[in-house]
């Protein structure tokens, strides 16, 4: 239907009609060109006119006010009901639903989708498509060719300006989410007045970004009266920590009670030297621990009564309880499976094995193991084979067997840098870790390779002082001289128990122990022979009274011989040089010969040096 609107207006109301007529053209204005105006202008010839066949465009700028946006979510609670249906009213909703259900479309769709859905459900019911096949079989490690590696996860730096060494580390006993680090300065008289005494507990999950922006963010600070040299969490109560101080006292903290120590041991009964190690004991009350220090004492304490130690042991190997003779203790070892025995590593390089339950103090010291040239910084029994223990001192790490007292059964090569700390891996019997003074962390797998570490990592440029492995064997923390604690994660090959590893490790330790036993027996035989021969020889010697040269004379003679040898070699080299210079055409051969000679001569010198050195030490021992 057309829409029509009729509009009527009378003709007479419109106004008069327009009538047009012709008219001829008229000139209104005529402006003639004025030649004098030309003088105002300079003709330009040629004219450069660029042409561009492009769209003409213009540029506009607009700057609006900053618009604040916010992202929000909506929690949809009720369906999208149409306007005329009130969702609160049950009647209306039911009616609407019924209406939809009657719709033809609905019926068809549901029937169709229903059959599709049933198909899939039946599929699901028929078979579990994500079933794990071969679940019982162990995964064959494809990574035999994969290089073991370790990755730095986190680094905690000492927030103070004057950096202290991280000398002690302890993992939190439950879940190991926290790491307690003891900071002190072990260098003699290096501690300045401004040095901070605090030690920190770090949360290892602190993201690295937060640490670098706000580096002084330890989870908790411990404020002792003197810097802490060592620190240990109580394995039974994760809120309690004990720390051994530089001044010989021992303090204990409860993390629920704040940063100040709950109690400190009394000065009169504490150690006289820094407390180098504290270990918690296995007891019913869970409050006993013992401490060792270089003043030669090992003291037992109970947390509840810190005013004096419950027991005392003086490390005098002559068994007289003489403090002046005592060896300074630097490390302690205690295995909870053998609660009556413990071992002490001394400054003098000996390991003293002690029995706590002995009747007399003299019997407390059972035996000593010597073989190291320097203080024993770490001492730990193998968690799988407690008869074997690891010691880390001077430039080597050695593995000992309890039965062999004269020497270690296995040892690493002599490194270029001092070894400062070491520990066994808690999950693999033949793997242990060591740290060095040049900042390197070594991972040794003795079943795989004994000459070199399986993995050698340069953690930092300064020396590493302490090392602790977490109980799962996967993470380890190492502390450096400038207080930087690095948290590393080791690749899975180094922390999963391989097949037969226990059996192989046990066989290896037994084999080495046997070898040492045989060697020991041989040495004993030789010594007996020597003794019997010297007894005979003494009778003959009584005849020619050769005055024994005093040790100084011997040393002087040795020195003279040494320098003579060196001079001889130098002269020989000069002669060779002259010879080679004259033979211009045989230069190359000459060099090669010279090299050989140098090698030979230096080898000789080295040999001579060894001989002289052993001579001198032999003389000293003889004294």
């Amino acid at each position, binding site marked *: 239907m057309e829409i029509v609107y009729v509009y009527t207006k009378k003709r007479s109301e419109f106004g008069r009609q327009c009538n047009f007529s012709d008219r001829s053209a008229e000139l209104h204005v005529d402006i003639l060109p004025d030649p004098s105006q030309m003088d105002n202008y300079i003709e330009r010839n040629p004219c450069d006119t660029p042409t561009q066949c492009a769209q003409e465009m213009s540029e506009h700028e607009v700057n609006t006010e900053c618009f604040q946006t916010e992202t929000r979510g909506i929690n*949809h*609670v*009720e*369906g*999208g*009901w*149409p306007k005329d249906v009130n969702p609160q009213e049950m009647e209306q909703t039911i009616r*609407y*639903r019924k209406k*939809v*259900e*009657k719709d033809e*479309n*609905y*019926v068809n*769709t*549901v*029937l169709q*989708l*229903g*059959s*599709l*859905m*049933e198909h*899939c*459900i*039946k599929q*699901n*019911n028929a078979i*579990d498509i*994500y079933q794990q096949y071969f679940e019982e079989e162990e995964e064959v490690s494809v990574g035999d060719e994969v290089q073991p590696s370790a990755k730095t996860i986190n680094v905690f730096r000492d927030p103070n300006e004057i950096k202290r060494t991280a000398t002690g580390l302890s993992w939190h006993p439950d879940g190991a989410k926290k790491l307690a680090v003891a900071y002190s300065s072990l260098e003699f008289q290096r501690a300045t007045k401004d040095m901070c005494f605090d030690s920190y507990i770090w949360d290892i999950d602190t993201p690295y970004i937060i640490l670098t922006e706000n580096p002084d963010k330890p989870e908790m600070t411990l404020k002792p009266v003197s810097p802490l040299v060592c620190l240990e969490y109580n394995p039974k109560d994760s809120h309690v920590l004990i720390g051994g101080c530089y001044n010989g006292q021992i303090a204990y903290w409860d993390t629920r009670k704040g940063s100040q120590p709950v109690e400190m041991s009394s000065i009169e009964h504490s150690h006289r030297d820094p407390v180098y190690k504290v270990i918690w004991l296995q007891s019913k009350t869970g409050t006993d621990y013992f401490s060792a220090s270089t003043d030669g004492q090992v003291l037992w304490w109970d947390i509840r009564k810190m005013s004096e130690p419950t027991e005392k042991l003086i490390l005098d190997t002559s068994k007289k309880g003489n403090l002046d003779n005592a060896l300074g203790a630097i490390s302690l070892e205690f295995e909870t499976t053998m609660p009556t025995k413990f071992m002490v590593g001394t400054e003098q390089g000996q390991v003293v094995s002690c029995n706590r339950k002995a009747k007399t103090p003299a019997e407390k010291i059972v035996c000593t193991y010597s073989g190291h040239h320097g203080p024993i910084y770490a001492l730990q029994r193998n968690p799988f084979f407690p008869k074997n223990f690891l010691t880390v001192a001077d430039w080597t790490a050695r593995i000992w067997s309890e039965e062999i007292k004269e020497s270690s059964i296995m040892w690493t090569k002599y490194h270029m840098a001092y070894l400062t700390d070491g520990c066994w891996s808690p999950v693999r019997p033949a793997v242990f870790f060591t740290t060095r003074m040049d900042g390197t962390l070594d991972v040794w797998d003795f079943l795989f390779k004994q000459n070199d570490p399986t993995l050698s990592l340069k953690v930092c440029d300064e020396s590493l002082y302490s090392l602790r492995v977490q109980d799962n064997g996967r993470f380890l923390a190492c502390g450096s001289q400038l207080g930087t604690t690095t948290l590393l994660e080791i690749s899975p090959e180094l922390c999963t128990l391989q097949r037969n590893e226990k059996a192989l490790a046990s066989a290896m330790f037994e084999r080495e122990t046997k070898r040492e036993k045989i060697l020991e027996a041989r040495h004993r035989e030789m010594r007996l022979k020597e003794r019997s021969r010297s007894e005979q020889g003494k009778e003959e010697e009584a005849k020619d009274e050769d005055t024994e040269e005093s040790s100084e004379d011997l040393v002087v003679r040795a020195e003279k011989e040494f320098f003579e040898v060196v001079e001889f070699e130098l002269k020989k080299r000069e002669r060779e040089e002259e010879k080679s210079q004259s033979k211009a055409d045989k230069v190359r051969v000459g060099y090669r010969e010279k090299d050989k000679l140098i090698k030979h001569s230096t080898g000789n010198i080295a040999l001579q040096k060894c001989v002289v050195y052993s001579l001198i030490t032999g003389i000293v021992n003889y004294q």
Partner: protein
Amino acid sequence: SSQSEVEETLKRIQSHKGVIGTIVVNAEGIPIRTTLDNSTTVQYAGLLHQLTMKARSTVRDIDPQNDLTFLRIRSKKHEIMVAPGKFALLLSLLFFVIYLLNPDI
């Protein structure tokens, strides 16, 4: 009649082993039929609607001739199965079933 067929189909699906719940939702997000409580239903409807649209557009973007026939979301505890209705100009029915895997019976 067709109504009873629909009823029967839905009942049958619900009675299968392992099926926890069935929801039939229409284009506006109104649950037409559900065996779960309202708040759960609405939550599922809202979330899955968006996901299904996204899945469908993904499939169509890769190949315009293609279309989404079924969507399965498998999680540790359940599996959600979505059968989308024919997508006409307006979105039509979605059909959800919530299915329990590894029932701890």
